[in-house]
């Protein structure tokens, strides 16, 4: 099981390389899914803002020692 998990993580890091982007994107999608039931159009704006926030955090961590 650990070998499979390591293989999946290695493959992801090879393809995308930034775990913050993965965490941010998954979080954005999960919360959007929860919001869609309450306000389907506002959920879209939330998804957009969360993706931009994910990019911002990834860049900030890249340049901060």
């Amino acid at each position, binding site marked *: 099981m650990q070998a499979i998990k390591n293989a999946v993580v290695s493959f992801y890091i090879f393809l995308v390389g930034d775990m913050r982007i993965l965490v941010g994107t*998954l979080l954005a999608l999960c919360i959007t899914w929860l919001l869609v039931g309450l306000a389907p159009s506002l959920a879209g704006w939330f998804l957009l803002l969360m993706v931009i926030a994910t990019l911002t955090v990834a860049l900030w961590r890249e340049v901060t020692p």
Partner: protein
Amino acid sequence: MQWATFLSSFAASLVEFVEAFTIVLVVGVTLNWRSAFAGTGLALALLAALVAIFGVALAKYVPLDALRLVIGAILILFGLKWLKKAILRYAGRKALHDEEAIYEHETAALRAMGVHHSNHIDRFGVAMAFKSVLLEGLEVVFIVITFGLAAAHSDAERMAGLQAAALGALAALVLVVLVGAVVHAPLRQVPENTLKFTVGVMLTTFGTFWAGEGLGVVWFGEDLALLWLVVIYLVASFALVTWLRSGTSQPRPVKSASHS
């Protein structure tokens, strides 16, 4: 023909094939062209098989909403990866991808290992060309499959989308090979960072739109939402470049040729 899908796939594939071409050129010039072509051919055959197998399987057997959500998520991941690197390069925080420097570095490394020109097919050369084309091509496979499938509303449209995306990738490959055969040197005139930035914005935009549709989001303007999403991502990206430029640091040195 789905021209948006074709052009998106073409642009994304062009960047990756230019990077793979540099290593193939190193093998061809240092060892021999038979080894370079053999490795490249094997990698391309494997990549085409992956597109055919996974693309058709996804097109036929996965429900549309689930497919859009997964594809949208994958496109957001790839888009943010490309955008992050392009923004860092525009802001001067990361050195521009220099194909010529990579070519010189890899050629020197091969010569230091004692590799020299030969007339027969060399396993090391085949492996080097194969690895380079395969690694760069894997991203192309993901982009071809996701772009090809996501914009469709029926099985027939999905297959047409896959074909359009695959043709875009093929057109990029042919262009790189033709230009490379004429120039016979690393393709340093290609505006790689501009292409990566543009493709990054496109991937992120389409990924956000389709992931949202898969989740049940109601986009303002429906399909026209793609336009204002592109504008917002462009404005945000330029703002991030400005923000990063306002700090001071030296760009990192160019790394050896590897997956970008």
